[in-house]
């Protein structure tokens, strides 16, 4: 592994990151209203899928019920803003809190079970939550949902009206960026590495001294809270929420975006969301009927042919090239 080759690759990596960051910062001024809206949505969905990547890509637990966290985050935001106090920050915190509490309670139960039971459990819980949300019409408004009026954003001394989609975009981008940074740092920390060890070899991780049950709960909670945060962004963008956000198909989309983008990379979910949400939007109206079928086919194709997703396969290719450039190289 030549240090030169390494620095070269990481330099390219940094360039890409900076390039993307610049594009994201400039985008809302360059794009028309509708593409800007789609981009904002992509950021939210990317953050949501990041929640999945935490529990699946990094911890190795297949949680097929991510929609629960998203819905709870959305309703947490709406309830706080509508019934408690019209503050955006309160709404965000409330959304995260709803999701976090749910994650801790459910996570405590669910992380005790082995992989197959775990998957089914998460599916069952998420379906039941959906049924509950649709049923408790007086609380949730079911599929019609609840509408709110967005309060102004208070940042220290300044007040911003959230009527402008550009302001909303920057707020959501900022929140997502901070969340991403926190997650990234977490997995660069000793605790984060321990979580990844669970994915690799749980029994051995225990025998080195890691309390894997505890760590799994931490990862599960982090995953749920991030997804809840994404959920809180939804009413922030659309001034509305609905019980449909609990629908299990949304959970499947988180899986799809992450797997397509590249599980375990933390960037992958955003990439996958960008690719697929744009594609879904670009499909002409008659194709929309076929979209779920296309999604199904794509899921199957990706998992069988390119299981590491776009980013994962790319990184693997880079690593292989690096290895083969080594003198006396092994591939």
């Amino acid at each position, binding site marked *: 592994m030549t240090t030169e080759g390494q620095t070269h690759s990481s330099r390219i990596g940094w360039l890409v990151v900076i390039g993307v960051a610049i594009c994201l910062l400039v985008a809302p001024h360059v794009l028309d209203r509708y593409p800007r809206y789609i981009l904002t949505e992509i950021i939210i969905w990317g953050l949501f899928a990041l929640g999945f990547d935490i529990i699946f890509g990094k911890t190795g637990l297949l949680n*097929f019920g991510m929609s629960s966290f998203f819905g709870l985050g959305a309703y947490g935001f709406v309830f706080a803003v509508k019934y408690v106090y019209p503050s955006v920050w309160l709404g965000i915190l409330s959304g995260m809190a709803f999701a976090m509490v749910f994650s801790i309670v459910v996570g405590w139960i669910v992380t005790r079970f082995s992989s197959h039971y775990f*998957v089914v459990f998460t599916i069952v819980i998420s379906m*039941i939550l959906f049924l*509950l949300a649709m049923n408790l019409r007086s609380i949730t408004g079911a599929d019609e949902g609840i509408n709110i009026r967005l309060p102004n954003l208070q940042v220290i001394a300044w007040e911003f009206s959230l009527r402008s989609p550009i302001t909303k975009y920057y707020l959501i981008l900022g929140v997502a960026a901070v969340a991403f940074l926190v997650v990234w740092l977490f997995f660069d920390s000793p605790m984060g590495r321990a979580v990844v060890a669970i994915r690799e070899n749980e029994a051995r991780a225990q025998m080195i001294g890691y309390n894997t049950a505890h760590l799994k709960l931490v990862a599960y909670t982090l995953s749920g809270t991030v997804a809840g945060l994404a959920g809180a962004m939804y009413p922030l963008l659309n001034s509305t929420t609905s019980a449909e956000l609990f629908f299990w*198909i949304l959970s499947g989309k988180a899986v799809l975006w992450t797997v397509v983008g590249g599980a375990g990379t933390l960037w992958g979910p955003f990439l996958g969301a960008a690719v697929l949400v744009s594609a879904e939007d670009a499909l002409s109206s008659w194709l929309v009927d*076929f979209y779920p079928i296309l999604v*199904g086919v794509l899921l*199957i194709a990706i*998992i*069988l042919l390119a299981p590491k997703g776009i980013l994962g396969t790319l990184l693997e290719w880079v690593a292989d090239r690096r290895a083969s450039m080594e003198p006396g190289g092994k591939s």
Partner: protein
Amino acid sequence: MMELIISQVVNGLVWGLILALISIGLTLIYGQLEIVNVAHGALYTVGAVVSYYAFASMGGWVFSLIVSPVVLALLGLIIYLTTIRFALGKPPIVTVIITYGILFILEQTVFLTYGGVPRSIPNPIPYNIPFIGGDYPLYRVFCAVFSALVIFCLMGFLKWTRYGLWTRATKQDYETAMNMGIPVRRVYAFVFCLGSALAGLGGALAAPISSVTFTMGHSIIIDAFIVVIMAGFGSVIGTLVASLVIEVVIGVSAAFVNPVMAKVIGMALMVVVLFIRPEGLFGEE
């Protein structure tokens, strides 16, 4: 009140037996191929839809009882050959995602062909039998009896026939089975088809009772998962018992609380059982 409870219990038993068909299919597929078949509910839906078309075109509902499982077995074979067999031996995510994809494809296809409007099949046995304080639909009694019969035959099949033996042998010890010359791949395909057929049969039986719509699989799959987890993956008898228990519990609860809460109670029961015995009531792992 007492009558209500008794009738809920009886309904629970009827649904429990129908559910048992579906759940047994699910647990067989898992026990044999280690696959959590997320698309199982969609197979049930297809079974119901097929029986609707069979009934609508041929008029004979008995005919649809035969056609559904056969069509589903075929569908299961297609699914197995095109996707599942490439996933054997790979980590669980692969098959879960594959079956998830199949779920999307199946449900949307049903939606596009059959439409989004729920329709029903008229009661094929429109007679009632006198029951405590009222009448009870004979058709439901038929469903219960028929399901019990199928399950009985299935258990006999697994115990005494050649393919049944092969199924059990492969489940016990894959390598030894291969070395003994058992066509393991074929057994896998067979089990998947069998599981699909059972789900389809359940759908065909349920079609006259509940309305046929492309989302009908959602509710039943929750129950099926609850049952299979509670019974422990892999046990046929255990699944039958758990099925009856769960449906009776949910049915009786539904007399007092709203139907969704009744399902939550069912799920709570499953959690309690799992805490006492993490491998399920009859689980073998």
